[in-house]
Every structure is written in structure tokens, then in C-alpha cells.
């Protein structure tokens, strides 16, 4: 193959996935630009955003890859009703890891900003926001990933090629939407207490 042929193949193969994640990323950006009041009210929240978004992608991308490998190997039945124990363990592990890593990110951001002498919201506010958004977006993403991978597999699509674009598109969007919901709930609760 010549350089031109390799480049053309690579370009054609990648463009749809990039286009799909472009749409998810743009809408996530609109949500982020619409939460300026919350970003001002919770100093340090913006610093937390990349870590939270990446965690969604890393955790649920890996869940999707795990399930699609298991489907290929016949370890998991493509049915949610079966209540497969492996499937339940994989989803539970993804949720647990997501929550653990989200709160770790909140503690890291709080500690670093405190050491740097920057203004930062109280630790409980950051941790509660990270945990709540991790839980809400985790449940939504696990649902989407499992449903879409199973549906794709039953229709004869290779789940491996579905997972990447699906998780990058929905991960950013759900990650930001539920971050907005979480920070509003936490600010409301903090105002009440």
C-alpha cells in the first residue's frame, strides 16, 4: 500500500466516529457554558471537569469492551433479563470504580488547590457533587452501554466497533448533564442546611 492509500483508509474509517463524538462533545460544551453560575458558586468545579469526563470514558468504555469480548467468547448471553451474574458483577464493578475514582479526583483537586492557596469550595461540596454525578451518569451510561451493545450484537453488528463512538458520544453528554444536576442538588442541599 502507498502512503496515500493508507491515509485514505484511515481517514474514511475514523471520520464517522469522530463526527459522532463531535456532536456529543458540542452538546456537553453547551451544558458547560450554561453552568457558569454553578462554576462561580463552586470554585474548583471547573478543575474537576476533565477528570470526571475522562473517568466516564475510561470506566464505561472498559465495561463496553469487556462485555463485547464476552459476547464474542459466548460467556455472556445478549439478554438483560437473564440477570447474568457476570454481567451484574461487571456493572457493579464499573459503578464502584467510577464512584471511587470520582471522589478521589474531588479530594485531589481540593488538596492541590488548597496547597496552591487558590480559592476552593469546601471538600464535602466537591466530593458530594463528584459522587452524585458519578452515580447518576454511571447508572445512565451502564444502561446505555449494555442495551446498545446487546442490541447491536443481536442485529449482527460487531460490538467492538460500537463501544468506542457510543461511549465517547454519550459519556461527555451524560457526564456534563448529570454534573449540572448534581451540583444544583448539592448547592440546594447546602443552602437548606
Amino acid at each position, binding site marked *: *500500500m502507498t*502512503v*496515500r*492509500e*493508507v*491515509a*485514505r483508509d*484511515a*481517514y474514511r*474509517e*475514523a*471520520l464517522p*466516529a*469522530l*463526527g459522532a*463524538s*463531535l456532536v456529543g*462533545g*458540542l452538546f*456537553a*460544551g*453547551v451544558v*458547560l*457554558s450554561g453552568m*457558569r453560575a454553578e*462554576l*462561580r458558586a463552586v470554585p*474548583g468545579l*471547573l*478543575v474537576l*471537569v*476533565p*477528570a470526571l*469526563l*475522562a*473517568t466516564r*470514558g*475510561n*470506566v464505561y468504555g*472498559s465495561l463496553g469492551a469487556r462485555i463485547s469480548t464476552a459476547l464474542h467468547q459466548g*460467556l455472556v448471553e445478549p439478554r438483560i433479563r437473564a440477570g447474568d*451474574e*457476570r454481567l451484574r*458483577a*461487571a456493572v*457493579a*464493578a464499573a459503578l*464502584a*470504580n467510577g464512584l471511587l*475514582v470520582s471522589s*478521589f*479526583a474531588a479530594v*485531589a*483537586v481540593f488538596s*492541590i*488547590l488548597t496547597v496552591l492557596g487558590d480559592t476552593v469550595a469546601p471538600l464535602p461540596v466537591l466530593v458530594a457533587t463528584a459522587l452524585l454525578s458519578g452515580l447518576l451518569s454511571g447508572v445512565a451510561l451502564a444502561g446505555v452501554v449494555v442495551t446498545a451493545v446487546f442490541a447491536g450484537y443481536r442485529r449482527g453488528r460487531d460490538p467492538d466497533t460500537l463501544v*468506542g463512538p457510543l461511549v*465517547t458520544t454519550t459519556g*461527555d453528554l451524560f457526564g*456534563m448533564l448529570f454534573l449540572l444536576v448534581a451540583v444544583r442538588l448539592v448547592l440546594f442541599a447546602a443552602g437548606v442546611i
Partner: protein
Amino acid sequence: MATDWTVSAITRAMLPVLLALTLVEVGSGLVLGQFEAQLLQYPTLLALVPVTIGTAGNLGSILAARLSTSFHLGTLSFDPADEHLAGNAVATLALALSIFPLVGIGAWGLTALFGSVQLAPGTVVAIALSSGVALAVLAVAVTVSVTYVAYRFSLDPDDVVIPVVTNTCDVLGVVVLFATVQVFL
């Protein structure tokens, strides 16, 4: 290589990597924090953040996946004249040139639709496109270097390269966006 499907086995396999990657991402968050005032002043710039990070990470991970496959198939050599290396590098640049103008137009258009914009569409597209081209060059450099290191240390590029490259490109996305905004504003 197959992990047992229990919560504790999956967690043992994943958690150390996840925690390390999180610290890298907190680094990119700290860069965002450095220009928080500008981002809050110009909502369009804030709208560019997730999509720039995401697209940069995707460019890197797609290139990494392709190089890893060529590497496993034995068709890749680390020579600038190698057609797989050069072709994939050219494709990454071409993808950036096609996607990032849309990133700029989309971010400006959606912010105009849902709120108020202060920046001219041309400025936003210029910021997006220059960031995109710089990111494509960096993504190629990072991916090729990391794949080469994985190869030298006999690590499976599939395990190592993709997460390292994706998260490094995420950070570079924020750094490059920050630098570009300082040039244009």
C-alpha cells in the same frame, strides 16, 4: 490475561490505572483553572472545552489503535518513510483539518442559539482550527513515541498505548486551547 468477572478482580485490574489517569486529568483541570476567568467571560470558549479535549483524545486513540494493529501484524517499522506510519500521520492531520472547523462553527452556533456570544464566528473557528492542527501534530508525536517505547519494552501496545495516549491528548487539548486563546484574544 482474562480477568475473573468479580467486582474485586475487575477493581484490582482497573483501579490503579484509573487513579493514575485521574491525576493526569486533574493536571489538565489545573490548566483550565488558570484561564477560568477568560472561560467564564466568553461562554463560547467554555463550550469549546469538552469537544476539543474529546476530539484530541479521539484523534490520538484512533491513531494508537491503528498503529497497534499494524504493529501486531508486523507491518509497522519506526521509519519516517514507512507507509503505515506516514499514511496514518497524514490521515490524522487531514481529520483534524476537516473536524476542527466544524468544532468552531458548532460551538459558536450552539452558544448563539442557547445564550449570548461575544466572540466573532471567525475568531472561534480560527481558535478551533489552529488548536486542532497543533493537536494533530502533537497527537502523532505522542502516539508514535509511546508506541515505540511500548515496543522497546516489549509491552502489548493495546494495553498501554491507548489509555496513555488518550489521556495525554486530553491534557494537551486543554494546554493547546489555553495557548491558542492567549494568541487570539
